[in-house]
């Protein structure tokens, strides 16, 4: 268990974060319907990413029984995503919405999701001292965001292990991307530099069966 601005944060193996103080489950960057997004251009990626992402979300909801699920933006790969959803996937989403209140924070991929989606819509929101938004901001005081799809790598015994990760700094938490087709961006990439000055951050690497806390300087 970690803390951000005195609030308990529990990173999960699924890539979600559980905030028991608010009974809130946070996930970022599901990118639902990414598989189908280029279909009309003749790129026919497997159309199973939405069900994989929703199944993982449903499992996390069953595990934590949250009052609310906050989706930190880029929940759909584009605003037309909900329309392309298969009937089965739509049913799966509604089943989740029956168990917890859904809050759709808008992201750069889905700035304007249709109101027909179950739950509330929001640009950003406050949870006690915390600000929740899609894109991390440089001057954040206590912020939880997504957007960057953080990943980290170590080399051990001649083998490189690279995984998605949570990034924790004194003033922020960045969540890994939750979706099935979402790649990762190395925390050493310059996009992170203004957000993580120096090596004063830690990562929680998401292994297959366990999480691993490492200081930022340990990461390649």
């Amino acid at each position, binding site marked *: 268990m970690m803390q951000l601005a005195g609030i308990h944060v529990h990173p999960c193996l699924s890539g979600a974060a559980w905030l028991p103080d608010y009974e809130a489950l946070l996930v970022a960057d599901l990118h639902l319907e990414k598989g189908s997004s280029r279909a009309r251009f003749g790129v026919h990626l497997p159309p199973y990413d939405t069900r994989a992402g929703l199944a993982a979300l449903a499992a996390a909801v069953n595990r934590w029984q949250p009052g609310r699920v906050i989706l930190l933006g880029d929940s759909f790969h584009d605003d037309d995503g909900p329309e392309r959803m298969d009937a089965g996937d739509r049913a799966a989403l509604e089943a989740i919405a029956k168990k917890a209140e859904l809050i759709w924070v808008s992201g750069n991929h889905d700035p304007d999701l249709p109101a027909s989606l179950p739950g509330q819509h929001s640009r950003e929101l406050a949870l006690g001292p915390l600000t929740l938004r899609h894109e991390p901001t440089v001057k954040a005081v206590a912020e939880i965001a997504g957007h960057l799809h953080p990943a980290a790598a170590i080399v*051990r015994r001649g083998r490189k292990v690279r995984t998605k990760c949570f990034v924790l700094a004194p003033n922020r938490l960045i969540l890994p991307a939750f979706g099935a087709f979402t790649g990762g961006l190395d925390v050493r990439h310059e996009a992170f530099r203004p957000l993580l000055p120096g090596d004063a951050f830690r990562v929680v690497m998401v292994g297959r069966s366990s999480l691993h806390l490492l200081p930022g300087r340990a990461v*390649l």
Partner: protein
Amino acid sequence: MDERTGQTGESRTRLPEPFAEWFAARGWQPRPHQLSMYAQVAAGNSALLIAPTGGGKTLAGFLPSLVELSQGRAGKGLHTLYVSPLKALAVDIARNLETPVAEMGLPIRIEARTGDTPAHKRQRQKTNPPDILITTPEQVSLLMAQEGAEHYFANLRTIILDELHALAPSKRGCLLALAIARLERLAPGLKRIGLSATVAEPDSLRAWLMPQREPGVEELASFVEARGGAEPDITILSPPNERMPWSGHSAVYALPALYEAVKQAHMALVFTNTRSQAERLFHELWTINEDALPIALHHGSLDVSQRRKVEAAMAAGSLRAVVCTSTLDLGIDWGDVDLVINVGAPKGSSRILQRIGRANHRYDEPSRALLVPANRFEVLECEAARAAAFAGAQDGEGPAELKRDVLAQHILGCAVAGPFHPDALYAEITSAWPYRNLTREDFDQAVEFVSTGGYALKAYERYAKLKPMPDGRLRLAHPRLAQAWRMNAGTIVEAEMLKVRLGSRRKSSAGRPLQTWGGKVLGEVEEWFVEQLSVGDTFLFAGQVLRLEAVEELNAYVSRTSDTDPMIPSYQGGKFPLSTYLAGRVRQMLAEPSSWGSLPEQVRDWLNVQRWKSVLPRADEMLVETFPRASKHYLVCYPFDGRLAHQTLGMLLTRRLERAGMKPLGFVCNDYALSVWCVRDLSLAIETGHLSLAQLFDEDMLGDDLDAWLAESMLMKRTFRTCAIIAGLIERRWPGQEKSGRQMTVSADLIYDVLRAHQPDHWLLKAAWDDAASGLIDARRLAQMLARISGHIVHKPLDAVSPLAVPVMLEIGREPVYGEANDALLAEAARDHESGLIDDAMRLV
């Protein structure tokens, strides 16, 4: 010279004028196989020519077309298509051919077309085609799909396929075979000429060339074979006063003798198996190059301009030796090579024969070759290869068959060419030899995959790439798809490469990181190699010791250092497994001490001590030794089935040993043996019946165990990525944008995971599995091996390591240890840093 023709004995054939006169004027005689080829093709036959390098093979292939063109056929559209696997060769061949054509004053126009040919020239070739077009397999696919292909190929009479032995076993060969099936429809009766080095089964190439229309009846092309008169002269280097290494691949012990051999030769080609070996050897040779002999380096990672420079210097005769990899296996003769040196294991008989043939520049004289084993096992392998070479035994791969990803690419290409009827296309495709056994069901699934992705969830019907027409034909849904197909055509999928650039360094100013910026490009390396390096690590590349300074985007910035010993010893690339045939010969040799006469004394001693301390298995047996060492327990087995199959076996054995409670910790392997180590006492477990070797090595490991491992396997993911790109599921490029390899890898892995979880029987997963089984996983060979050793396992419990086990045991620590426990590695790293944190906290200054 011994000369043999297949179906008709036409050695009395005379060439018509002006060809006969042209030969006579130069004091030359047409070679018998050149005449035979002419006679065969003039009689309307297709033919396969097998001839060694330097046998006038290219001219033999062209003669029939030149004669036909000289007899009033020139200037009437494209007559002959000549396909070479090497882009660089196309231009050279066109130039070489122009000489005789000009000297005979023939009105024949010859042009080359490759990916590098400028657009305006390609356009002219389209509107005003040459008589002979020299090109690559990829270009044939593109030409076949272009608008007006019917007209363009209407007068095509002949297609000549060079280096067919190298093309046919590859996916490029499959794509070419499909394109030829299409050409046959546009130009019925097309004559096919195959030019090949010696192969194990010429009949499969003869069949490959021909349209196969009736199931069960194999059409064969005529066969012409020319043999070099002289047997190759092969020596195995064994410096008597040097200690023969137990393991390793660098052959440094033999360096002075090797240098001496180079000095004696006029021009030597020094072949190695991997780029790292080439780099290392080149580096070491220069440290003792007291005579300052001009010795150059040539391998696939070096910058193209640098390679061309070396080739030109070879041709000009200004070099004494070139250290190279398989990049010089194929191609025209660049110089007066009179000695071929092969450093390291020969790996296969055909492979070594071909390399030796590179010294065959004077056709009737023996090729001189020097084999340099780098360790004791390689001595046995070299002996086996020498024996195989004298017997003329070939063991190269046969033609590739039924590559599904290639099929998908071709089907879309056919739609780009115009609407097609599935029945007609099925008949056309199954007339290509590699696809003669394609079932209609498999074909229909391929069409479905091309159109909508072939998913059980019918999500993409409305985005189908192929739309049905009222007459039952299918047409391309949108012209944009044609453009995307053209950009992605071909079967060569490069590993993600980084450019190695010299970067200048600037002192860091006020907390800013080190600045580096672009200097000269030295070449390219695989991304994974660079990923294992930290800034400051040194490695050998392009013959120099380099220090890694920074990695930015797709560039690895390096600086030169004065260090002589690089920290990172090697990077792999091009490791071929030991061929089944040669492995069989090595097993035979081990089993028969009477055959050890030619072995160096040190090697004989080694084997004799093995016989005394442990066992030398019979040729049909597999020896398993178990012994304790340094509080661990080892199992070493000797299948001799090549590194790839051993790696897969190692993965599967550790799973099974884990289940048997033996607590395995890791394994390493080489081409000959595999060593697994455990916490528990293996000898004891076998003796008391707790562990059964027969069960451990049972063939059923290829079922669930293999399946479970594949879910995680990086090798499987790499194979899938290649299939997905060739099949068009992932785009390499699209108009106006080029996707970097890095982004692609991520998505290919994720696609693999998702597809495997939700539709494990998907058509493309099947394609990838078939590829991996004969490729990186080598499950096919593992299956043969498990069947072979069933009931023939000899177990020898020992108190200590045996002589035969030493080489593979020495690999421990040199090679990464295989395993799947990524989480374990992460936990270890986290633990270390925990204690590191405490150290930091407790430090007083």
